[in-house]
């Protein structure tokens, strides 16, 4: 049976005000079942206030083979990080 069920990616928002984060994946026959399964698999210990599910095949992902041209050029450009500023203590979550 499971062979026929597509894979879904699950995103959970753990608190209001925070963003949805990728929690994992699961199998389900359709979106509704994916949502219910996600509720049972990923939020049964009170982890979430909102769930998104996306069928895995609908996600376009970068290819690890292209990591060189994709990511390496950014490695030696430290000036793109805002690390040269002193942040006041009051600014949290940075």
């Amino acid at each position, binding site marked *: *049976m*499971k062979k026929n*069920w597509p894979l879904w990616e699950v995103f959970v928002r753990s608190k209001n005000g925070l963003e949805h984060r990728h929690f994992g994946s*699961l*199998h*389900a*026959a359709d979106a*509704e*079942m994916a949502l*219910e*399964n996600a*509720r*049972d*698999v990923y939020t*049964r210990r009170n982890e979430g206030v909102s769930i998104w599910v996306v069928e895995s095949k609908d996600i376009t992902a970068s290819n690890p083979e292209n990591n060189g041209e994709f990511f390496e050029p950014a490695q030696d450009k430290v000036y793109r990080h805002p690390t040269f500023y002193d942040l006041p203590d009051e600014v949290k979550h940075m």
Partner: protein
Amino acid sequence: MKEYLYKYILGIADNSLILGQRLGELCGHGPSLEIDIACTNISLDLFGQSRSYYQYAAKLKGNETTEDDVALLRTEREYVNLLLVEQPNRNFAHTMARQFLFDVYHILLLQELEKSHDLTLAAIAKKSIKEVSYHLRFSSDWVKRLGNGTDVSHDKMQNAIDALWTYTDELFHQTDADKAMIAEGVGVDVTKFKDSYEQKVAEILTEATLKVPENKWFQKGGKQGIHTEHLGYLLSDLQYMQRTYPNMEW
């Protein structure tokens, strides 16, 4: 009057305990990992609910009675759960049909119990309603899914509904304890929502392209402690630890 209240509480608590145990049997045996976890979740909800009821019942009984004594150390004839909830997990359609036929009843019962003059029962009901709303959503989804699925899944669900239908009339029977508690404003008059129950069940079955069975003969006895042969086996599993290691605690 206390004796009636005690019996009335068991009449509600035993349903959650026995159905919880039935679903718990599926732990590690569900048709898929996700469904396995879902069934176990529902099972744990039901155990949690039964625990609140048994704590209350144990307090009423006094004499240092504990919730474990009430839940785990009665004999088969002293359990007063509905016959429906003790029926075995024959296949997944059966498990979901049993769950669905109980969930529709359970939510209607709790919605009335929430208005009970007994504040403890009202509070337990209030807390349980959200859990049971999800149970009903889950089970009715599966009834529709299997009913509208393939020819095989449709037939399995129809067979399950047909086989379990004979236990549905008992949901609306009343014991002496029920009647006494209704008179006190504590208990729920289940006959009042029989029509709503039948209507809701018919609505989902129709949506699932399933036929509503037309039984003329129904099983009864669970509420009097007269059970089907399946309960004894279930209890021997459920009670094993307390019987083998008396007074054991986690």
